[in-house]
Structure formats: C-alpha cells, structure tokens
C-alpha cells in the first residue's frame, strides 16, 4: 500500500508542476534558513576542535556581585584569588583551566602591522582543550608559574608574521614584548569564545594578574568533569562552594552569584536573565521554548500556505477520493495516504533545502563574518533538518488530510467538495 501511495504521490507532484514548485519553494526556503541557523548554533555549542569533550566541560564566565543598598549589580569574570582559593580546591572536577577574553595586541613585521587577539591562559587549559597542534606544544604549568615569555600562535598569525608555520623555538614581538614560540595550532573560530585567540600566553604575564583578595577579575574558567555523568555533581559542588565564598568588601557587596554551566546554559543564564537574577535558573528551558516557538512560527507561514494549496488540490482530486471511499478506503486510510504524500513532498523540499543551506553556508563562509569560523552541515544538523522536515510535512498535511477524509463520497464522485 505504501508503494502505491508513493507512486501516486510522485505522479501528483509531477502533474501539478507549478503547485509543486510553489510548495517546494516554501518548504525548501524555510528549511534552508532554519538549517543555516542550526549550523551556526551547532558550530558554537557543538563538540568540535578544540572543545571535543564539551559534554564533560563546565564554564564559568562571570561572578555577579549584588551591591548593597540596591546599588545594582556588578558583573565580571573571576580573579586569580577566587580561582585558586575556591575553584581549584573543588574535589569533583578533574581539572580547572582559565583563560581571559581575548584582548587587542599588535605585532609588527618588517612591512606591516599585525593586529592580534591575545589571551592569557594557564597550563591546565591546554590539557582540557584539544587544540590541533601543527607543531610544538602548549606551555606547561611550570612555565606559567615562572612567568616565562612563551606563547602559542595560531596558524594565521604564524603565517602572517613569519610566512610559515614552522616557527617553533623562534621569537615573536607582541606589544614590544618578545615571546618564544612553544607551539602553533590550527585556527580556532571566534565563535568559540572560551577557546578563541590568535596568541596565547601565560596568565602570569597579564597586567591584570593581581594577587589581592578581590573576587572579580578577568578570568573565565573551564572545569573538566571526569565524565559526562559527573557534570551535575561538579555543578552542585560549585554551587555549594559559592555559599562559602567570603565577601572581601561586605560594605559594598551584599551577595555573590556564580554558576558552573555547560556551554549553552553559560550563555542563556545571562542572555535571558530578565527577572530574578539571584535565582539559580539557567534559563535553558526558556531558551529552548523561545527558539522552538520561533522556529514553529517561522514554519507556520509556509505551512499554512501549503495547507491552503493542499485543500484546493483536494477538490481537484475529489473523484479519486470518491473512488477510494467507494472501494473500501476508510477515513483514516485517506488521512494516511495524504500524509504520506505530503511528507514525501516535504522530504523532497527538505533535501532541496539542505542543498540550498549548503550553498548559503558557503556564501556566509566566504564573507567571513566571524574570524576563522567555518560553518558546515554536520550529520547532526542533517538529522535535525530531516526531523524539522517531517514536522513540517505533518503540520501542513494533517488538516487537509482530515478534510479530505471527511468528503462525502457521493459528492466527491460528482466532483464536488462538500463535506459530510
């Protein structure tokens, strides 16, 4: 029966070429946009170099300080005092690494100025992240402790400065300081905010490396759990730890809030913190709800258009519906048939949408909107795309199918569209 449905679905698609074109355009264009957005989203939060073990990673990007006397909030990354005295003492994480948000730096070659993004990190950071080394190695904890002027360059900087990536052991001058190059890594997308930079140097060289008891500083933290299953325990221990943190300036600061989150919640917690900022809600559910609703709304318009076209098409096929009913098709058989037809149409549109999305992503990549970002359609995105396509096919097929199944066979055989 399915084969027969598919056969007639295909014939119907070919018979009404303009209708098919309009339908396919609606489906494929909608899916193209959704797939492009999903590919970008996947690029930012999915497992990829250097965050291959992202399912075991937790990130801390800020400490929120609630000021006394309703003087508002102050947000900043953590200080070394906070990292060393509290976070590094946690028992559940396997490792705690730190990195600063990249800052502007400049290197001069003989002929040109090379603007760079520079980050300060520690030795653990390199063990947590899986950078792709083209040569050399990361700097060690010992090098960090002794504040040696070593650095890791990305491929682009090595080529820009030296014209080659074979530069391990040579020196580079950045902001009038000379650094020995320990290693060169493949470029990392700027969308990976916890890993991106052009140059990485030991945090002990940072001008913002203060040894006092301040809580706020410039360091983002990456906590590596021993396994994905242990992530909740790490989160919980971090939450418990925050209760013990001593406020160094209680006259000004009333309370401190900070959370160790997986990558997506680490963004959504701040992005959607409209209401009570003291609550522990990471707003992930709200984020998915908003994104889901937006995707649904986005699909709704072309789906409604397809519903409308489908309902019109049913009238054209009333004779067939009448015959099928006369020869024993129950209402649900017809619903099944029409849904199959519509899902076939949607799947064809989905495949076209995938092709269009690949083209659109190639276009986006060529304009290089985010440094070193290369957006691709992964199997995961493909899977989601197909799921969305099925959803679309069902959304736009259910109502017309139901309407079709309700056609009075006598009227249908006469070529009319009245319902029972």
């Amino acid at each position, binding site marked *: 029966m399915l084969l*027969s449905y598919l056969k007639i679905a295909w014939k119907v698609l070919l018979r009404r070429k303009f209708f098919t074109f309009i339908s396919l355009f609606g489906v494929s264009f909608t899916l193209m946009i959704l797939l492009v957005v999903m590919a970008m989203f996947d690029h930012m939060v999915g497992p990829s170099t250097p965050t291959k073990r992202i399912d075991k990673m937790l990130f801390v990007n800020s400490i929120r300080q609630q000021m006394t006397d309703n003087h508002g909030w102050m947000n900043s990354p953590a200080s070394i005092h906070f990292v060393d005295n509290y976070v590094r003492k946690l028992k559940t994480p396997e490792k705690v690494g730190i990195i600063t948000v990249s800052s502007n730096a400049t290197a001069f070659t003989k002929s040109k100025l090379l603007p760079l993004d520079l980050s300060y990190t520690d030795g653990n950071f390199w063990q947590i992240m899986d950078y792709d080394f083209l040569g050399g190695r990361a700097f060690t904890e010992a090098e960090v402790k002794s504040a040696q002027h070593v650095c890791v360059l990305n491929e682009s900087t090595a080529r820009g400065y030296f014209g080659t990536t074979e530069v391990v052991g040579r020196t580079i001058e950045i902001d009038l300081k000379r650094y020995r190059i320990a290693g060169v890594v493949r470029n990392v997308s700027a969308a990976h905010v916890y890993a991106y930079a052009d140059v990485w140097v030991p945090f002990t060289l940072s001008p913002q490396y203060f040894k006092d008891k301040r809580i706020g500083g410039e360091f983002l933290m990456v906590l590596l759990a021993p396994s994905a299953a242990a992530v909740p325990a790490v989160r919980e221990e971090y939450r418990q730890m925050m209760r013990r943190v001593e406020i160094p300036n209680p006259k000004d600061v009333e309370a401190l809030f900070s959370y160790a989150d997986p990558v997506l919640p680490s963004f959504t917690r701040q992005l959607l913190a409209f209401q009570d900022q003291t609550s522990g809600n990471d707003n992930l559910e709200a984020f998915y709800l908003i994104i889901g609703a937006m995707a649904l709304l986005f699909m709704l318009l072309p789906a409604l258009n397809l519903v409308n076209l489908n309902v019109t098409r049913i009238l054209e096929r009333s004779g*067939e519906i009448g*015959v099928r009913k*006369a*020869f024993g098709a129950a*209402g649900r*058989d017809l619903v099944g048939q029409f849904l199959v037809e519509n899902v076939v149409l949607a799947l064809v549109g989905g495949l076209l949408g995938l092709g269009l999305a690949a083209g659109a992503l190639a276009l986006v990549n060529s304009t290089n909107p985010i440094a070193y970002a290369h957006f691709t359609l992964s199997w995961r995105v493909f899977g989601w795309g197909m799921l969305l396509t099925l959803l679309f096919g069902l959304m736009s097929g259910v109502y017309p199918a139901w309407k079709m199944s309700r056609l009075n066979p*006598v009227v249908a*055989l006469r070529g009319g569209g009245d319902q029972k």
Partner: protein
Amino acid sequence: MENLLASTIDTNSQPPLNGATAATAPVLQLTNIEKVYQTATIETVALNRVNLTINRGEFVSIMGPSGCGKSTLLSLMGLLDEPTSGTIEVDGRPVQSYSDKELAGLRNLKIGFVFQSYHLINDLSVLDNVELPLLYRPKLSGRERRQRAVAALDKVGLSARTGHFPSQLSGGQRQRVAIARALVGGPEIILADEPTGNLDSVMGEEIMDLLLGLNKTEGVTIVMVTHDIQQAMKTGRVVRFFDGSQVG
C-alpha cells in the same frame, strides 16, 4: 468488525457459480427508505418510502427519468450515503449502526461499483487501478493483489493492457477496466450507475454483454441504473422509479 465480516464472507472465495443455488436469499434489503435533502429554504424528497429486495444472483435494472432518485438509491445500496429514515440490510444484517470504518470494510468486501464516467485514476496504470480495492485488504500480499488484478483484467479481455494508462484507452476499454476493478475483490453485488451512458451503441452493447455474462456465468448480483429500455429488458427484473417513489 473483522470477525463479523469473516463470518459473512470468505474473502478468498469466489461468488457462487450459479445464482440459482441461492437465488432466493436477499443480499440487499431496503425497507421504508426515505432520503430527504434539506437546505436552508428547500426540502427535497429524493426517495419516498422505498422497499426493495435484491436477491442473490439477480440482475436488476432501475429505470426512471432524470432526478427520480435512481442514483441516490444506488448510493444508499452501496453504503456511500445514509438514508434519512428506513433500514438497509446487507446479508440480513442492518447496517445503520456501522461506523465509517465498518462500512468501508463492508463496501470493500461485498460491493463493486461501476460508474458512468468510469472514475479511473489517470495517474495509475490499468493494473494499479484494478488493484486499488485490494489495497484496503492488508492481509493480501502485493503478489496476490497483482495476480487477482491480472485475473480480473483477463475476465474483461484486457490482460494485454496492464501497463497502459486510462488516457491511452477507448471509452469501452476504460469501462472494462472499471468493471475489472469492481470484480477484483470478488464482491457479492455490483452496482452499476449508467455503465453504458458515455458509450456509443456498439461499445454499450459490449459492456452490457460483459455484465450479462458475469451475472450468468459467475453468478454476480448486479443492480444497474439505466435509461435504455432495451438494455433493461435484457436483465432479469426492471424496477421503475418516478419522483422518488417506486412505481413498478
């Protein structure tokens, strides 16, 4: 429902070879049937207190002027529509309480339709068109469906045209395909609504001969709506209608 159907018909068996063995058993019984079409302003009585019994193996013609309710009656007999009042019995069982699914099952197993304008699906081949009623019998394999469809086409003399599409056939051939489709499920009764109405006299005769042959040799019960008195006279019984009422 499936048990009920199983108890009333063996789907794999052929209809009785000769209607004489069970000629007196009613396959369809209509009692006090009324059909009224109601609009906001007008009430139209399409059928008025119709009592009609169709016995197994009969070939009955229904005649009357246009608009007298013949096609409405055929739709009711085919369980495609519901009467406003009265009862319809198929094989002695009243069907008014049947669900949509049960009625569909009953139509599939017991009734075959032949329409004036053939109602073949142009997108499907001749074989696929004939196979269509069997699609709604999930227990049949694809191979069995094909075999039965080819056998039905053989009965109407079109087994050489299985791969053709309806648009490639003449009117008479299309109606033969439609008859094969009506036959393929081994129904107890074929309801034919002016089956020769769109055909010239020669093709009309061919189709009539085919129906008469099916009735005689296969024992298929046939109810045919027609305007043609000569064709009607060839059938076993003529029922006349006028203005929604049975007049003879």
